[in-house]
């Protein structure tokens, strides 16, 4: 039995314990820090990225707790408050879009729905679509990219051409066309459920070539490395090499691209809702709020500013965080 490296055993003599402790520090110094640890240390030093990360976390918590929070402030996102609307102009009574103690961010023109509650519920849709479509894109992009890079030949040709085709495809037009012919019920989902499901699939599907290209390029350079050669000469199977040798080394770029893909997806969702092919009423979405705010940009600017700022903050936070993660994971990055 060899001496434990990391911690002294309880039964060991005091002298032995001291010795072991010294050995442990020595071992630590020699072993060094893991890649994740280094990245975390770097990330902690990047104040901007960290604050981005905190905002992202906050947004997720707020989105998850939307029903609880709206209950606490006593507002229902779908309840009409006709009394708060000036019937002549259909805009909220009072200044700043009807802002008050009851309605923290004011109310919508025409129907007087509480904007605060609708922004919170809108965050659910934005983040749900943003995350899940990124997951779809990452899974597809990683698997296909790694296959293309590793096997080369006709596999690479086919996958690369498909990626080229998809990158050139007018995705927004395709989604608009698709959503308008979508049935109202499918796979046990109805209305908004169908729309969200379709948006996630389509945004994810058109997003994978971006990540696929990066993974393919990395795989191309990694597959010739010595450790891969070594594994191969030891008789490792192709799938072992793919998933045990290559994939762990691709984690860093994949994480970076995922964090950067999420804000793009959130913007795409907002654009789709803006164009009227997103979620169905009364479900709220930031893009849809922006779209209906156009008619009131002059008389009720707050209604346009609030969802605009929400989208802006979310996308900015994700981008800052994504940047930080990339810098942290890439040892060559200097600042």
């Amino acid at each position, binding site marked *: 039995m060899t001496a434990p490296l990391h911690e002294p055993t309880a039964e060991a003599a005091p002298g032995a314990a001291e010795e072991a402790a010294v050995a442990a520090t020595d071992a630590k110094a020699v072993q060094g820090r893991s890649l994740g640890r280094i990245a975390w240390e770097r990330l902690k030093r990047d104040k901007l990225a960290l604050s981005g990360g905190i905002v992202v976390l906050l947004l997720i918590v707020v989105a998850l707790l939307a029903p609880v929070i709206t209950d606490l402030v006593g507002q229902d996102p*779908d*309840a*009409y408050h*006709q009394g708060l*609307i000036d*019937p*002549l*102009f*259909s*805009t909220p009574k009072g200044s700043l879009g009807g802002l008050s103690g009851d309605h923290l961010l004011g109310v919508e023109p*025409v*129907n007087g729905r509480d904007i605060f509650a609708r922004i919170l519920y809108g965050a659910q849709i934005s983040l749900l679509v943003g995350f899940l479509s990124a997951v779809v894109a990452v899974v597809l992009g990683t698997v296909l990219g790694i296959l293309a890079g590793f096997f080369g030949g006709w596999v690479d040709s086919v996958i690369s051409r498909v990626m080229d085709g998809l990158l050139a495809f007018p995705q927004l037009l395709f989604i608009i066309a698709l959503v*308008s012919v979508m049935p*109202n019920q499918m796979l046990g989902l*109805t*209305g908004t459920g169908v729309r969200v499901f379709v948006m996630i699939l389509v945004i994810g599907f058109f997003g994978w070539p971006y990540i696929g290209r990066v993974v393919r390029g990395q795989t191309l350079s990694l597959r010739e490395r010595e450790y891969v050669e070594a594994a191969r000469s030891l008789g490792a199977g192709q799938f072992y090499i793919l998933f045990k040798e290559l994939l762990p080394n691709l984690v860093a770029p994949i994480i970076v691209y995922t964090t950067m893909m999420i804000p793009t997806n959130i913007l795409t969702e907002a654009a789709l809702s803006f164009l*009227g092919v997103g979620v*169905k*009423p*009364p479900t709220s979405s930031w893009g849809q709020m922006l779209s*209906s705010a156009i*008619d*009131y*940009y*002059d*008389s009720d*600017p707050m209604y*346009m*500013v609030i969802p*605009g*700022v929400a989208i*802006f903050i979310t*996308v*900015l936070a994700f*981008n*800052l965080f994504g*940047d930080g993660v*990339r*810098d942290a994971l*890439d040892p*060559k*990055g*200097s*600042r």
Partner: protein
Amino acid sequence: MNTQRTSGRRKQALAAAAVVAGLLTTAACGGGNGGSKDGAAGFDAANNKVAQADQVKKGGTLKFVSTQDADSWDTTRGYYGFMWDFSRYYSRQLLTYKTEPGAEGAKLTPDLATDMGKVTDGGKTYTFTLRDGVTWEDGKPITSQDIKYGIERVWAQDVLSGGPIYLQQMLDPKNTYKGPYKDSAKDHLGLKAIDTPDAKTIVFHLPSPNSDFLQAVAMTSGSPVRQDMDTKSKYGLHPFSSGPYKFQSYAPGKNLVLVRNTNWKASSDPVRKAYPDKITLDISTNQADSDQRLINGDYDLDASQTGLGAQGRQIALKEHKDNLDNPVSGFIRYAVFPQSVKPFDNLHCRKAVIYAADHVSLQTARGGPVAGGDIGTNMLPPSVAGGEGQKYDPYKIATKNKNGNVNLAKQELKACGQPNGFKTTIAVRNNKQQEVATAESLQAALKKVGIDADIYQYDGSQSPGIIGSPSNVAKKKLGIIIMGWGPDFPTVQGYGIPLWSSKYILQSGNNNYALIKDKAIDGLFDQYTSTLDESKKTQIATQINHKVMEGGYYLPFVFERLLNIRSSRLANVYTTNAYSGYYDFVNLGLKSTK
């Protein structure tokens, strides 16, 4: 790559921040440019009365703008209300609407004819004599044969589609005549229902009387067309003028210029005053831009009379109120319940929806009391003879139940056998924001009584095949359809027959969405068409409206109002019920000829 990209992305973020800041600033400084009181007539000064008639001067250029061109300027093919209004500049009919404001303007008066016609044979024969001195733009006289030929063109739907076909339905309901282009007679005047014994006399023979026949004669599709000038499907590019103005140039979708027809004699025309020298119409596809130029006074009127957009409306109401009129249009905005979709086959379920709806919220969704209209309480527009406005309110929509009555709605649901509510679908056109807003309002109100409504949005141009197809409505279970309707001519027949008569249920392009098959209503329409006495006609119109409301087929939203802007240059301005509350274009004048 890395550092470079990082700073690049941060710059992007900063740029985005700048954009948001910019947005805030522009939003904050919108408006401004205070309205000048440059002789505008005042709010509602031209609504149902004549504004500034004494200030009119002969001459000048009257400038129209529109966000859409007419469907066609061909007198046979045009169906847009503003085209009918505008067409009086270059076309005359046997009879036309009086050039008077409001309800008086919906009455008929002789135009090419010397009188209102001689009715004989129990309302089956109408004889008209033409005025002396009526001429075409080349100076040749307008003959009764020209009028007959113009009317015959209605039958040529294969070549000249799009226009109203009331004349054909009343004169030849079995559609036996094939139209002038397929007419084997040498003079192409083979239509048996019209005789022209001489150049000044025209006789109509109806197979059965129709009390609204004169209305059909007065429509633009009753205008004369001269055979040697008929360019068939291209006639709309340059209609040959019988009125005080003629086409100088026309670029479809861009602009239209009318100039004086020097061969038109004021002495031959008791209706048209022809004040300006020139009339121009520019088509602008950008509503915000055209609204702004109307507000600035660069244009005198919006030809399409669809009212200002949301943004222009707010600016105009705040700063140019004296240039606005707020007349009641003939339109009613409503929801209708197809009886083919369960549970709307049950009267009580239909009533439940009527009671559950928040009518004030629906009104606000339509634009409020000014831009939207008064809360609708029944289905006959107040501008139509027999319409009672809010005085007839069987469901207390504008009074007790205006914010929705949950208790009554629940009682009706119980009576309908759906005490816990049900699921349904609201079909609504997606091209107008107000339409979707009414659907959302209804959805929110129905939720309170347990009715779970999904909103189905579709492209409005596809209406005939989507909501106009009863089989599609039943298949997609569209239990609530949101629509609007205005009269083709201001009588209960011109408004209601396509909506409520069982004979008008069509497999495509159907307008009787509720699929009303009520013998009493059908009978009342038959009675109406054979009654010539005006006061009896009005009574029957009222009765029909009551029957429709008692059936609970409709949930009216608003008796629509228009909010139209007129420039301060205009004189002799008034709205008329003949054209759904639009300004009467034909007698507009300018205060200054510059």
